[in-house]
């Protein structure tokens, strides 16, 4: 079974999911994984889809042209076999949350500290909250720590970011419990 990464984005309005899934259903596609959300007024759909017969993106693209006519942007990429599977991640899980006055570079600075140490970001969300006059930037991310880095050490690393950027950063360990 071949898998494809499909991204669809356009100004939010009712009926987008219905239109997209109608097309996928009629094509005979299976939705393996998906995440859809409103980002700054745009409805963004990210899907991993599969088809029992088609193995090249070009065979599928034509099906989505009605969406382009409805002002939705469509991107499709063919995944290499196995590319649809999440990589095996070892190490402790932690959640990093950042709150602060909106200013450029918050995400970059935090992500750079993590990336340089081989800390894998597995989920990231940002939002602007607060008033229009005093916007507050919120970022929450989930990351897997390599064995040589502890949550306490990451907290120490983030203390510098806290100081440099003047933002609140909290790091907490996530321990999934088996009940």
């Amino acid at each position, binding site marked *: 079974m071949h898998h494809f990464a499909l991204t669809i984005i356009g100004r939010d309005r009712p009926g987008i999911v219905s239109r997209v899934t109608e097309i996928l259903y009629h094509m005979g596609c299976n939705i393996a994984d998906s*995440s859809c*959300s409103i980002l700054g007024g745009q409805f963004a759909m990210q899907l991993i889809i599969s088809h029992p017969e088609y193995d090249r993106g070009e065979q599928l693209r034509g099906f989505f042209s009605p969406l382009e006519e409805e002002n939705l942007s469509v991107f499709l990429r063919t995944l290499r076999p196995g590319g649809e599977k*999440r990589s095996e*991640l*070892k*190490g402790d*899980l932690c959640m990093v949350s950042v709150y602060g006055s909106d200013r450029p570079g918050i995400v970059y600075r935090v992500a750079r500290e993590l990336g340089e140490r081989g800390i894998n970001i*597995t989920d990231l*969300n940002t939002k602007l909250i607060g008033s229009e006059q005093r916007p507050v930037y919120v970022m929450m991310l*989930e990351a*897997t720590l390599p064995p040589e880095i502890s949550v306490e050490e990451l907290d120490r690393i983030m203390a510098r970011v806290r100081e440099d950027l003047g933002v609140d950063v909290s790091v907490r360990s*996530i*321990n*999934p*419990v*088996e*009940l």
Partner: protein
Amino acid sequence: MAVREILLYPDPRLKQVCRSVERLDDEVRGLVRDLLDTMYDAGHSVGVAAPQIGVDLRVVVVDVSHSKLGRDDNHGCLVMINPVILETEGSKTMREGCMSVPDYTGNVTRAEKILVQFTDGGGTDRVVRARGFEAVAIQHEIDHLDGLLFLDRVSSLKTDVFRRKNR
């Protein structure tokens, strides 16, 4: 007695509301033994409910005393027959996993302190005040008796349900 096989979702037996235990007879005593054997055999488990081994009776066992999160504040091994939560207080969010729902964990918010009434394995009526991880574990197991899994308690699939990463 015996280590029993844990049923996996979507087995319909995990979604049924269990019957109250009427009499503490040999069948129930055997069930309690099996639940304890199954829980301790799993090693990392801190609780098992009867429907997880295919029995539709209101019986759970909980023991958080060997877990890092629960060892400082617990009642040891609890056998709970017909458990009822009388009072709840506060809230606590933990990322829960369940032997019946492998591969996924989810953020679930539950009461931080509970007062729970039950009949123990010896047939004595007891009331226990539990807090923290033990309280969470008891609530998770009692949910099983009403056909509820942690997946029924998460509020957002996007932010609250995660594919298990360390297995």
